[in-house]
């Protein structure tokens, strides 16, 4: 708190003092002139009438200076502000004076300074937040697996995320997609149905969605392309938003499923047609000899069995697809289990006069397994062995008991499996492209089923094979 706080305003004090000086001068002048005019002999002191008032004025000025100084400072700075351009920074100086006015001035300065700082902090914050948002959007766009692009009215790419370049990587072009014509990047002019695509794309105000196959082989790659008109806030717009997604896996899965359905209908219809044909023949012709009749009846039975087995397989498939395959595990006598397996497998072996041998050790442990599923799995392996081994070939079932695991080996002298197909044989719906396999009916699900059963039991199924020589499937289960 300054010691000399004066509550009167500076201006008033100024005026007051000024008036006082003036009055003092006037008074002195008056006194002097009166004195001089009264005493004629003191005429020598006449200059005093001028000097003394002047001195008083001078002294007054000095006294006033202090008072004026503060105002002058403030007025100076204000005048400077008035002349300065609006965008320049206000270079305001605080005034060191205990006077209230000076303190007030300094307070203004502080407040202005802090507001300015606040304003600049605010603007920097909002800038960085916008920047953050922008960067976040960019990050999101570039992390998307789908390709995203925006094209201008001429169809040239003005914005693209990283995925787009990766998905559209042409054989020759490594240059970034920006600036290039989208239709050229997608190789639309050379696509199949280029005309229909062109038509679709002509309708610029509608969304257009289509699939692009890289080649006739779906596994070479299929892209799903969608184009949407980009509309401005006012409803107009000539730009388009493109989305490109790799749907190869989906299409392959669809195709495999279609093939499966196709196979299923065929596999169901064939035995049914046979049963009907034979039954009708027996009904119509009264004069068929007994041996022939018996053959026909047996055929009907065999076809019915085949149909029934296939339906069982379908049920298993359904369970596998739903991921709902569960195990009903019980203590199982392996001898009985293997006897069942061999009984199921024998007819197939006999039909093709295959040399079938089973090497089973005398001492077999009891296993905690799902008996039906294990039987089905082993029958499947043996069934395949018989199916894909030519007449009078060799199939061997060999059981190997280890310390904490048991192995079932099914070996055949059949057509074998090509090296590039080996890793795929356990895939659902997979069927070899080999003609000799395709000739045989099959769902492509048997091995997938066997594999799943082994896995659920905590075991494995593996295959070793040589094309045209034979295959060996080994199912391993923990004891």
């Amino acid at each position, binding site marked *: 708190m300054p010691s000399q706080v004066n509550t009167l305003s500076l201006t008033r004090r100024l005026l007051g003092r000024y008036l006082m000086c003036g009055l003092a001068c006037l008074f002195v002048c008056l006194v002097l002139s009166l004195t001089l005019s009264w005493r004629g002999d003191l005429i020598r002191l006449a200059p005093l009438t001028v000097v003394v008032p002047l001195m008083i004025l001078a002294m007054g000025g000095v006294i006033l200076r202090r008072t004026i100084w503060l105002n002058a400072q403030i007025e100076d700075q204000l005048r400077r502000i008035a002349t300065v351009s609006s965008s320049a920074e206000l270079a305001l100086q605080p005034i060191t004076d205990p006077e209230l006015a000076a303190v007030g001035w300094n307070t203004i300065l502080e407040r202005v300074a802090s507001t300015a700082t606040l304003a600049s902090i605010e603007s920097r914050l909002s800038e960085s937040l916008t920047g953050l948002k922008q960067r976040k959007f960019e990050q999101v766009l570039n992390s998307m697996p789908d390709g995203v692009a925006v094209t201008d009215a001429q169809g040239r790419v003005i914005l693209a995320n990283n995925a787009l370049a990766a998905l559209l990587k042409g054989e020759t072009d490594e240059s970034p997609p920006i600036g290039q014509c989208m239709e050229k990047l997608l190789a639309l002019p050379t696509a199949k149905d280029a005309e229909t695509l062109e038509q679709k794309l002509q309708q610029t105000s509608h969304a257009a969605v289509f699939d692009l196959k890289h080649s006739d082989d779906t596994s070479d790659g299929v892209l799903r392309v969608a184009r949407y008109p980009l509309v401005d806030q006012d409803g107009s717009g000539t730009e388009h938003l493109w989305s490109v997604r790799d749907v190869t896996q989906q299409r392959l899965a669809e195709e495999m499923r279609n093939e499966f359905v196709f196979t299923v209908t065929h596999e169901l*219809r064939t035995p*049914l047609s046979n049963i009907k044909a034979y039954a009708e*023949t027996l009904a119509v012709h009264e004069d068929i000899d007994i041996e022939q009749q018996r053959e*026909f009846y047996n055929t009907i039975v065999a076809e019915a069995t085949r149909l029934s087995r296939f339906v069982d397989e379908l049920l298993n498939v359904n369970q596998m697809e739903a991921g709902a395959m569960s195990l009903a595990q019980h203590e199982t006598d392996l001898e009985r289990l293997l006897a069942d397996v061999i009984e199921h497998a024998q007819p197939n072996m006999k039909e093709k006069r295959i040399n079938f041998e089973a090497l089973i050790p005398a001492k077999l442990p009891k296993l905690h397994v799902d008996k039906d599923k294990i039987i089905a799995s082993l029958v499947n392996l043996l069934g395949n062995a018989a199916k894909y081994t030519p007449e009078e070939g060799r199939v061997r079932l060999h059981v190997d008991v280890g310390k904490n695991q048991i192995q079932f080996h099914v070996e055949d002298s059949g057509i074998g499996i090509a090296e590039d197909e080996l890793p795929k044989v356990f895939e659902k719906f997979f069927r070899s492209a080999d*003609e000799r396999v395709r*000739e045989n009916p099959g769902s492509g699900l048997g091995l997938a089923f066997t594999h799943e059963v082994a896995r659920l039991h905590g075991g494995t199924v593996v295959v070793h094979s040589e094309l045209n020589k034979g295959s060996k499937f080994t199912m391993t289960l923990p004891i």
Partner: protein
Amino acid sequence: MTSDKKKVLVVEDNRVMSDVIHFNLERAGFDVRVCGNGRQAVELLDCERFDVIITDFQMPKMNGEELCRHVRQDVRHADLPILMISAKGFELDVARLTEELSLAKVLSKPFSPREVVESVRAVLEPVVV
């Protein structure tokens, strides 16, 4: 006088099916040859003369449609009546195929052997007015 039996070529990869067709056609008085795929059929057509062909649509190596096209392209067999057996009901465009390949008839599985015999008879022994 040699028996004037008409010769039928049956092309069917499923042995069980071809056996029953064979049985029924023979009972009906036809001379029947059976083979398991299109290629064998083509070879047989080269050596022997047939009056009618019955073929399955779905076979490995050369399917029924391909066989038909092949047969129709051959001048010798251009007029040979062909009956097609198909199990592919939902996908097969019967009208289109019948026209394109000049099929005498399309039978769909499951069919009755009587149907087969009657169709063959109808094709080979048209009613004379």
